[in-house]
């Protein structure tokens, strides 16, 4: 991952997270849960992407296999 990107992203991300924590009493409890879940998921994905852990590989392999199957089926039609 590009380090300049990582720096800009972490700075903006943390500033926005601080703002949302400060304003949390303006949101309903359900919205607060959604917002925090989004932040946590983003942070986990960022760490995985930064250390080049390919967490989506099995999913991507499944999609690729599916694509190949559809392609083969389409080509077999004519």
């Amino acid at each position, binding site marked *: 991952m590009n380090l300049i990107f990582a720096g800009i992203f972490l700075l903006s991300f943390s500033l*926005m997270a601080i703002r949302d924590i400060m304003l949390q009493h303006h949101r309903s409890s359900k*919205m607060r849960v959604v*917002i925090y879940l989004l932040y946590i998921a983003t942070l986990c*994905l960022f760490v*995985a*992407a930064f250390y080049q852990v390919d967490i*989506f590989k099995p999913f991507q392999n499944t999609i690729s296999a*599916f694509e190949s199957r559809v392609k083969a089926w389409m080509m077999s039609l004519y």
Partner: protein
Amino acid sequence: MQVKQVINHRQIAWLTSGVIMTGAVVSLPQQLAVVARNDAWLSQLLPVMYTVLVAYVFERLIRAYPGKNIFEILIETRGRVAGSLLNGILLLFFLLILLRDIKGVGHFLHLSLLSETPLEIILLVFVVVLQYFGRSSMEVAARVNEMYFPMFFILSFSMYFILSNEYDLRRLEPIMDSKFVALLLSNWMSGGLYGDIFVFGAFLHAISQSRLFFSAVKHGATMAGFGIMLILIIQLGVMGYLITSRLNYPVYVLVEQIHLTDFLDRFEVMLFSIWFPAFAIKVVITYLTLLIGIGTLTRREDYTYCNGPFGWFVLILSITTFPHINDVNNFIGFVLPVLVPLIQWPMLLLLFLSARQKAGKRAGSDQGSHPLLKKYRRYTRLWWICFAICTISLLIGSFIEPFYGGWGRVFGAVYFFGFLAAFIFSYLELQSLNHIMERAKSIARRA
């Protein structure tokens, strides 16, 4: 609480066209050229019909559930649990569309125009634009689209004349030589991208006149179908199907062929600077759809609250998914055409049945013998006749062509002009319906 938004018929038509066309012109030609070869331009008929079907169901929903969007309707009709589950599936589908578009444009800009800029930075800038629009509403996106989409559409038309020195009609021949199955498959493949029209479900609460919405989406879809067909004709006429099927971005290479004197050597930069904002609006619409969906699931809370974290989530997700350009292209060509029938068709049926149950039969505002109504009915009928002519010419042409080669050209011309006529009639239908609405409003005001 959802923000009150109102958009007019012209904005709906142009947004529909923009949502379908701006993405399709870049990513679709290659896949279509692989399947239908030089008949790839005949691939827009069934997808346009499908879009009209979606518009019809949405029209019924607007009538049956005024002021509600598709997420709220699903919860109301299917209950909290099943409705939320269906909304979750729909949101996942929209998220895939959003990631496809963001990563697709990222790869495209990185490979063609900004080769030195890191992909992550391109994605970051794009997502920041989305977050900016995420603070506003559909109205803002619709207004920006009104500035860029007409220019984009006119330029797509003018490409035929700009590239006339490179064009050779013989590259399209033999017309309708592909097997009927190939034509059917190419139509089915295009249907994947036309499935993006479902994003309008999130804005049903912003539509006040359901019949006008139907005509506007019909016109927008016909416009998009005709525009894509025209670009495919230019593409195949300039480069042929063999080169088109082997390039990742055939339209980019096509635009690079434009040489308007030595002063306008980099004409493609100008063209892409008009295409890009139009495409960005399409992505903004999908982004807003997702925000509205999340807002609805959290019980009608203002969707702008989760704009920031959702933008970052989409950014990081887009970095980790679709690592190669082929992944995006294969997803568009071979996964979306399966996902659309799997997700959208059952949902459309469910929604249609619910709307039918709630509102009964479609109320007829087209009864009566006023000249404006007659005009509207005539244009509606003519649109259907044009599409029937296109379908018949495609069917007969593909069966006759192997035996009598010359007839392929004749039926191809009938198909083209039938589509053009449908495009014109859809516009006239929309205009006449708008006049009827205006007249009805002025009468109501006087009364």
